[in-house]
Each structure stands twice: as C-alpha cells, then as structure tokens.
C-alpha cells in the first residue's frame, strides 16, 4: 500500500495547485501526458460521457428521496396527500419545525442531543482507542500480537445486530439496561477502526521517525500523540466518520436496550412515532420533518471533516 499510495496524491496536488498558479499550463500539460495513449481521444470522450451519465443517474437516485423529504417537510398535513409529492405547495417549513420542537415538551430536541452525544462522544473515544490499539499492533512487537489482531479482525465480521441481544442479557445482569451507558459503552469499540489504524500506521509512520523522537527524549505516549497521531490523521478521520455514521444509524441496539424515551436516539424516537401513524395520523408530519432535520448533523460532520480527510490523505502519503 505504501508503495502505491504516493502516486495518485502527487497528481492531485499538481492539479490542485496548477490552476491557481498558472491556469494554462494545466491544460497544455495534459495532452503531453496523454501522448503515449494517443489513440484515445475519441474513447476518452465516450468514457467521460458514460462516466458522467452513470454518476448523474446515481446522483439523481440518491438525491430524489432527500428532495422528496425536503418537499414533504415543507407541506402542511392536509396538503401532504393532496399535492404533487415532488413539488412545493404552501411553504410551511418553519411552522412544521416549530410544531416538531414544541411537541411533547421538545422531546425531539432531546433525542437529537442524545444522538449527538452517542455518536459524537462514542466516535471520538472509539477513534482514540482504535488509534492506540492499531498503532500498538503496528509498531510494537510482543507475543500474541497476530492472534490479538486476528481476534479483532474476527470482530469486523460479526454484525452489530447479532450482538445486540447478547449485550442486552449481559447488561441485564449488571442492571445497566435502559441507561445512557447501555448504548454508549458498546459504541466505544470499532474493530474496523483498529484494523484501519494498524494498516495505516504501518504504512505512514516510519520507524525512523519514532526512533528519532525517542532519541530526542520523547516518551512513548508523547511520541504517539505528537508525532504518530498527526501522521495517522487521515485514517483517524475516516475511522471517526465511519464510527459516527455507524452509531448514528445504529437503531437495533437502542431498540433492544432502551425503554425510557429520555435516552432515545433520534432514529429510535422517529421509528416509535412512525409505528403509531395508523392510529395517530398527526405523527406522520412529525416523522417527516424530524427525519429531514435528523440528517443535518451527518451532513455537517461530513462537510467539516472531508477537508481534513483529503488534505490528510495527501500529506500522509507524500511523506
């Protein structure tokens, strides 16, 4: 992996900086690079068009439901059934949001905060743990290292859903079900994160650098946090994002663990409301607008972190 990685980012770096510095050069250089494959201009137009088509189709495929959700979120309940589902009627977004956040003393906001706490806190700690574990597995030699790694790797294969019921029974033994911890604690481990951190640490943190840090008198913990973590940032951002999304979307564990709605994450709360729509049709509107608002934190997280992700990828691989 380390041998392959440097090439593509170097290209990216060139493309990124070139337009700013000297716009024409980028365009001039491209045909030169393409010369060995000179037969290809017609092919490249075709492939570009087809690639764009595929991407456009998929973009549409992914965005139409969100568009629908947004449009539905702006409608009053009477217009929801009677108007075009993909276009606006009277714009009631503000009213809908107000109704949602005031319904039953703002229980929805509580759910959102819970989700942010579960996903944000859980992903942060899970990332730190995975980074330490993966780093240790990559950089220290000790007996049982491979066995340990393989056990963790085995953990990747076990779906979280399959663990929910055993976890419930264990937490029952220690009377921790129906608490914040019953959802938070199981979210702190990310076998995939350990795997990724190990692979990435092995590839991006040179032993010589660690050696140099040691020679300069830094302890192992300090070396880890001041040197290695920085080199591992792109992987860690990836781990954080994956874990954040996984916890945010983890619906089954809270469903099994929680009874008190003050601990519900937003997914479970909306699901509970949705299961009542037959008898209490007003809830449908709340479910729709609630679902719309519940994707905002995910979007924000991605927008904020993708920058680190890309920059980091380049930085890590150039070194």
């Amino acid at each position: 992996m380390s041998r392959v990685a440097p090439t593509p980012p170097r290209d990216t770096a060139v493309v990124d900086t070139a337009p700013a510095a000297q716009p024409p050069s980028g365009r001039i250089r491209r045909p030169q690079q393409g010369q060995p494959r000179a037969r290809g201009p017609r092919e490249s137009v075709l492939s570009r068009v087809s690639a764009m088509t595929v991407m456009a189709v998929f973009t549409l495929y992914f965005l139409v439901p969100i568009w629908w959700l947004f449009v539905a979120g702006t409608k009053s309940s009477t217009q929801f059934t009677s108007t075009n589902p993909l276009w606006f009627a009277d714009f009631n977004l503000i009213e809908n949001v107000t109704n949602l956040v005031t319904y039953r003393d703002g229980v929805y906001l509580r759910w959102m905060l819970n989700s942010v706490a579960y996903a944000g806190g859980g992903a942060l700690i899970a990332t730190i743990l995975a980074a330490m574990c993966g780093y240790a597995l990559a950089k220290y030699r000790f007996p049982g290292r491979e066995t340990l790694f393989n056990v963790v790797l085995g953990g990747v294969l076990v779906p979280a859903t399959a663990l929910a019921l055993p976890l419930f029974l264990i937490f029952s033994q220690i009377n921790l079900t129906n608490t914040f911890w019953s959802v938070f604690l199981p979210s702190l481990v990310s076998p995939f994160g350990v795997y990724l951190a190990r692979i990435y640490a092995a590839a991006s943190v040179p032993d010589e650098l660690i050696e140099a840090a040691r020679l300069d008198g830094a302890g192992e913990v300090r070396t880890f946090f001041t040197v290695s973590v920085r080199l591992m940032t792109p992987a860690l951002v990836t781990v954080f994002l994956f874990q954040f999304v996984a916890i945010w979307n983890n619906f089954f564990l809270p469903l099994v663990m929680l009874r008190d709605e003050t601990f519900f994450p937003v997914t479970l709360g909306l699901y509970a409301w949705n299961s009542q729509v037959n008898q209490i049709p007003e809830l449908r509107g709340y479910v729709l607008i609630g679902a719309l608002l519940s994707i905002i934190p995910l979007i924000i997280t991605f927008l904020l972190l993708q920058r680190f992700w890309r920059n980091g990828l380049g930085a890590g691989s150039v070194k």
Partner: protein
Amino acid sequence: MSRTKRAVVVALLTASTVALVGCSTGGSSASGDADAAACEPSTGQVDLTFTSWIPGIEDVVDVWNEANPDIQVAVQTGPNGNGGTYQNFFNQLKAGNAPDLGQIEYDALPNFRVQNGLTNLAACDGVLDAQSDFVDWTWGQVNFGEDDAVYAIPQDSGPMAMFYRSDLFAANNIAVPTTWEEYAVAAEQVRATGAYITNFSQSDINQFAGLVWQAGGSWFENDGTDWTVDLTSDASVKVADYWQDLIDRDLVSTNPPWTTEWDNAYNTGAAWTWDSAAWGANSIASGAPDTAGKWSVAPSPQWEAGDDSSGNWGGSSTAVFTGSEHPYEAAQFALWLNTSDESLTMLNESANLYPAAKEGLNLPVLKEGVEFYGGQPIYDVFAEASSTVSPDFVWGPTMTQTYNDVSDGFKAAVTGQGTLLEALTSGQTSTIDALKAQSIPVKE
C-alpha cells in the same frame, strides 16, 4: 498457518456467543401462572413500571401517581408491539427484568400466555368482579375462555362499522348497502362512475380477520391443552371468496394501505367506503382532509338481511408480567387505567382509544357529533357495533407469523397470482408448522 489461526478465532467467537445465549436461557425461570394466594397487597410504598406505546400515556399516569402516593407508576415506552416492543418483552422476561405492566394487543396475548409470560390476576381484589364493567367479548379475549382466570385487563377495542361517502351515494342515486350482497351490487354501480367502492387491504390481515369474525368464524381454538388452527373455516372461505370475486371483477382497488396513494384515493373520491374500526375515524379525517363533512358511518353490511353482527379490528389490553412482585397494586392500576372516566377520556383525546369498558362508551366525548362526519354522532354506531361483536373469536399463539404468511399470499393474490383462499390455505399449513416448531400442541 494464518488459516488455522483464523479458524480458531472464529470457533472462539462462536463458542462465546453460544455460551452467552446459553446463559440467558438457563437464567429464565418464568414460573407461569401466579397462584391465587399470591395476590396480596404489599406494605409500604410500591414502585411499578409500565411499558406502553400510547403517546401521551405519561399524562394519564401522572393523574394516578398524584392520587396514589403509595403506588407510583413509571412509564416506559417504545415502538408499537409488533414494531419491537413485544420482542423486548420476551427478551426482558428471559433476562428477568420485565416491567410490571405492559400493553399487549389482543392478538398477541396468546403468544405471551403460551410462553408463560402473564400473571393470572383472578385472585387480585376486584378483578373478577370487573368482568361486568367490560364489553362482553373483550373479557373473552383476556381470559381465553378459562374460568377463574384473567390474564390482562381490556383497554381499548376496535368494533367495526362502515365509513361511506354519503354525498356520493346520494348524488349517484346508489342505495347505501346494508348486506354484503347489496354491497357487491353497489360496487358495480360505483365502478360505473369510474370510482371504486373500497380498497381491499392486502396487508391488514387483522382487518380481514375482523370480517371473518363478523361472519361468525374463528381462526383458532384451544381446548385447554391443544390448539386447533382454522384459517379455512366455512366463514373464512365465504369471506375470502366474496372479496376474491370483487377483486377479479376489478370492483375494488388494491392499493397498499396506509400509504399516500391510499390516502389520496379517499381524498379524491376514488374510493367510497371503508369497513373499519372505531379508531379509523381519525385515519380518514387526517388522510382525506378535502372530504370533510362528506362522510357518514353506518353499521357494517350483514351476511343475512336483518342480522346484527359486527367484527373487531385491533384493541389492546394491560397485562401484568410474571415476575412482577406487586401484582395486587399492578392490577389496581390496570383497572383504574381502563375503567375510570378520567383516564378513558384522556386516552381517547390523546390517542383516539375507543374504550373496552361499558361505561367508557358513554363518555361525553363519544356522544358528541363529529364535525368531519357532518355532525353525525358516529360513536353511537360503534357502541352499537361493540355490543354485537361475537365473543367466540380466538387468536393464535403465533399471529405475527400467521399475518406475515397470509399477507404474502394476499399481496400475490391482488396481482393475480393465486387467490385469497389459497393464501389462507397455505397460511393454515405454515401456522401448524410454526406451532409444532415451538412445541405447542396442535391438532391437525
């Protein structure tokens, strides 16, 4: 080498999972029915937990807590029963931390009974006497026909009647049907105007069960030990053939229920009637807002002219789980919750629950004219229907599976693959298999 290691890892993981699951089954000591002597009041303050998915139930429980400082009830909540709460109940019974009380729909009660999850409340003060407070058939749902047994307190019910577009029937000079025969004739006349008389719901199998219930059928029977499955009784066959005929002649639409297209069919006048439960009044009012004032409610069409029978769709009860240390107090709370005017009024206002208690049917809120239905006091029709529901319909212990299997068959049938009767026949077979698989004694 790595392959063997991996195999070891997998084996270890599997073993630990099995051990965990083993633990749990070993730990369950649900001992079944509480015997009569067990239901004594506790001394001191009692704290109860109550799981229910009714939105707004907290407010009702607050009223109780205010008036009963010695019996404090804490509300727990979740999705509706089949949405996960029943499974949670079973998990909790297994883990020994089930709540004291839980909401259970009538069609799920036998499942909990078979798994020994319910406390027999018959010995608790006032429970047996409460029988006369409830509509007769609801009591049959909670004692399973056993004397000296009460496994839950009835909460709400869903007696069925026919919602219909009185304006369209009048404008097109079509007589409002009072028998199913007239209904089929009216269906042709309605179809001639371009609309459908109703929508046949392909996945609401409990609505279909309500229609069979009205026709005098029952899907299950229990003689104390053995279960009999009877999805294909004469009454079932009659109802299935009747609707199959309407489907075949394209006289009913077959939109999936509870979807926007379904709502829209009612909202635009593409569907004219709906034989549904009391709680359905609100479904139409919110799903078809443009038709306010144009609906009325009449008794369900009958199989024989002059008959007077109704089906039921839905309804739930409040049960006390095995393992509760305070069945006496739990029973007192359940009785108050489901019989007091105060509680029933609040439940009706917050969740449209239609009471199972006789007195509850006379609540002032259920006597008023309803604006959406042109000011008609529609709940009088449902009160009448409630008194004509047969007490003999019995649910089976694996209704989730039965619903799923029959629903699969119905979905196929409405698209022309097979018939409703075939769906019931295969549901019959698979239900018997499911019972056998759970070692529940079943007669064939």
